[in-house]
């Protein structure tokens, strides 16, 4: 399609923007409207940037839908709220102003949500109010006269249940009608409304008096307060009981990850072993056979076996997110966060970093103060992301006996929990250091809305898991596969000279590099093989597992080595001190180029990613050095 016809198309499609308070279901509505699969969660601040999709009404009208971060008011305080304000006011040069607005309101909390609706209405743009979560509001006994509400607000009102895709067609038709019926303002008219100014206290008060008046007229029966929710909160938000619940919950998750994942992991291991034997049997001894068996199957297979554990971890995270518990955990952690100088809002970014540091760093946009935000960005990569899970699992399974500690608690699960806790502890400790040196300043209080408890949606969880599985397999099939192939070449060539008695890998490019950096790594208990595996680990942490599998497979090419026995090979070749040292390295090192790239983007400077990689490398080296020598001293060397 030519540039001109693309421009024409863009002009023809009405641009609709979703705006509303945080956690009112905007992204769920966006997904329902567009068929998209954007991440949703039952806590505020999931969406931190604009997302765009296309929807089609029953009458055949195509609409461009824009999802925006949640905001309580157009008076933006955080970077994500600024995005919403600027898009709505047409202040962004790279973004055409939306022609119709969907004001999304949580029907269970209209007293607060309608304030923004009135602000949006004041922009003199066609608005349709989507009263979302109507099922929840009705189940609590709320009875609204929607006609009166629409009349008093002066905008069409459509009840919706985004998660069940209810009211979507009606909403689309209302949008089309609004777009066609009202003559939407031209660019010059919109420019007039750019002259938005910060409202005074009196204006804000008057707005909420108006909200009370409208609700007084339109509410037939008020919603009952959710007493059961308060009872649960009484326990989970209690400083002592709440902390115990949190620790027990996390410990259970890590125990379960180890015990439940074993069976599917064994199936995958057996499958990979059989496939390796099958492929090996098809070809004669030679480079292609070595590439397929020792490079690709060994490298990719070693990472693939961790799929069940990753899916189990995410199943728990998704269930906790959907239930509304995550925001409670943030509230509970505010006291701890406050002691280390972190803002309470930093909890959600740090929690997101347990999946991947990148969404975690982006989620810091919800933090108002630049000092608090930068501190959170810099410590986020210390929390344990899912890419570390394969390395942790491999080393724990190989070196930690699975003995019973107490009742259902086993040592392997406990060590895994300890590694995650160590990541959190390291992040909090670094936050203390940064807040008392580089980023001194007062800590603002946490003001956080606690979402309603909800029964986790099985569809949502399954969709999330499908997405996770696909991402993991895509990563295995792209980055890990290509790195395994390149590493195979580097570890196989140049070939050993005739009559050489040492293993051929010693003469290879990778072997030479490994031997060259060995003196630096030796004090940490790492040999040249670990050195080889650490380098591609910078592209993606879990590549290290595949790289180790490839290196050991090539080294033992003439022996009876099997791809599924990497843990066994490591147990034979490494001491427990080396394994512990490597675990500490993995907790503390910044082995992720993507994290550095996103830090550069979010801080708009190279200074902070360089600082991040610098301090984390020093921490990792120091931590591993101490761990290795203490372990050797304890007789584990």
């Amino acid at each position, binding site marked *: 399609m030519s540039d001109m016809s693309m421009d024409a198309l863009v002009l023809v499609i009405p641009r609709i923007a979703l705006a509303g308070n945080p956690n009112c279901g905007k992204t769920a509505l966006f997904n329902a409207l567009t068929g998209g699969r954007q991440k949703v969660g039952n806590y505020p601040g999931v969406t931190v*940037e604009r997302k765009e999709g296309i929807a089609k009404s029953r009458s055949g009208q195509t609409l461009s839908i824009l999802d925006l971060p949640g905001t309580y008011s157009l008076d933006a305080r955080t970077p994500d709220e600024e995005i919403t304000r600027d898009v709505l006011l047409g202040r962004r040069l790279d973004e055409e102003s939306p022609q119709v607005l969907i004001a999304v309101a949580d029907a269970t909390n209209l007293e607060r949500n309608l304030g923004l609706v009135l602000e949006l209405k004041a922009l003199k743009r066609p608005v349709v109010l989507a009263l979302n979560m109507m099922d929840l509001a009705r189940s609590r006994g709320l009875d609204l006269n929607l006609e009166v509400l629409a009349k008093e607000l002066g905008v069409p009102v459509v009840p919706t249940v985004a998660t069940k895709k209810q009211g979507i067609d009606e909403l689309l038709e209302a949008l089309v009608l609004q777009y066609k019926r009202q003559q939407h303002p031209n660019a010059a008219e919109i420019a007039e409304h750019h002259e938005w100014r910060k409202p005074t206290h009196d204006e804000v008060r008057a707005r909420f008096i108006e909200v009370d008046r409208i609700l007084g007229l339109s509410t037939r029966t008020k919603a009952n307060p959710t007493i059961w929710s308060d009872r649960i909160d009484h326990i989970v938000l209690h400083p002592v009981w709440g902390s115990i619940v949190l620790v027990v919950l996390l410990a259970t998750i890590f125990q379960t990850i180890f015990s439940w994942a074993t069976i599917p992991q064994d199936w995958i291991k057996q499958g990979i072993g059989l496939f390796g034997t099958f492929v090996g049997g098809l070809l004669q001894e030679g480079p292609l056979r070595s590439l397929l068996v020792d490079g690709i199957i060994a490298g990719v297979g070693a990472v693939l076996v961790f799929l069940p554990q990753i899916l189990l971890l995410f199943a728990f995270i998704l269930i906790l997110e959907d239930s509304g518990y995550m925001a409670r955990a943030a509230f509970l952690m505010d006291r701890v966060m406050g002691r280390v100088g972190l803002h309470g809002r930093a909890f959600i970014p740090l929690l997101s970093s347990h999946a991947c540091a990148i969404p975690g760093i982006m989620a810091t946009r919800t933090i108002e103060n630049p000092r608090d935000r930068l501190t959170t960005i810099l410590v986020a990569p210390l929390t344990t992301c899912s890419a570390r899970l394969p390395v942790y699992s491999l080393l724990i399974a190989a070196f930690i006996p699975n003995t019973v500690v107490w009742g259902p608690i086993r040592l392997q699960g406990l060590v895994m929990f300890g590694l995650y806790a160590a990541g959190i502890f390291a992040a909090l400790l670094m936050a203390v250091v940064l807040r008392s040196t580089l980023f001194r300043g007062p800590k603002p209080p946490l003001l956080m809305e606690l979402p309603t408890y909800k029964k986790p949606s099985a569809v949502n969880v399954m969709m999330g898991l499908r997405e996770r599985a696909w991402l993991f397999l*895509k990563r295995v099939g792209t980055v890990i596969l290509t790195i395994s192939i390149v590493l195979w070449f580097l570890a196989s060539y140049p070939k050993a000279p005739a009559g050489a008695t040492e293993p051929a890998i010693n003469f290879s490019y990778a072997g030479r590099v490994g031997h060259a950096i060995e003196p630096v790594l030796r004090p940490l208990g790492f040999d040249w093989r670990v050195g080889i595996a650490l380098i591609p680990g910078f592209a993606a942490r879990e590549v290290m597992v595949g790289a180790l599998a490839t290196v050991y497979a090539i080294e033992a090419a003439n022996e009876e080595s099997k791809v599924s026995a990497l843990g066994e090979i490591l147990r034979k070749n490494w001491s427990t001190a080396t394994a512990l040292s490597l675990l500490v390295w993995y907790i503390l090192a910044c082995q992720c180029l*993507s994290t550095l790239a996103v830090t550069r983007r979010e801080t708009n400077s190279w200074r902070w990613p360089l600082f991040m990689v610098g301090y984390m490398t020093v921490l990792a080296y120091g931590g591993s050095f101490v761990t290795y020598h203490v372990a050797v001293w304890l007789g584990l060397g």
Partner: protein
Amino acid sequence: MRAALGAGNTLSLQEVIAFGIVALAVLSLAIRFYRSYLAGPVSGWLLGRGKVKWAMRVKAQSAGGSCGNCPSACGPEVKTKAQ
């Protein structure tokens, strides 16, 4: 390549196929690296020099620093299909 094989060696059929696969992998890694880490800064640099058209072209090739580990938070925007 011959140097890598060692003196006096010639390429066997298995080696030709294996090296072909390695070459494809290197190319794929190079493209991925460019799209993930270079295209964004290069686009910014071009924009700074006033070459808007080139900047937009390069920006379109950027993968937005995505690591592939997170479902949707990466990249400046996500276009989804029609319902």
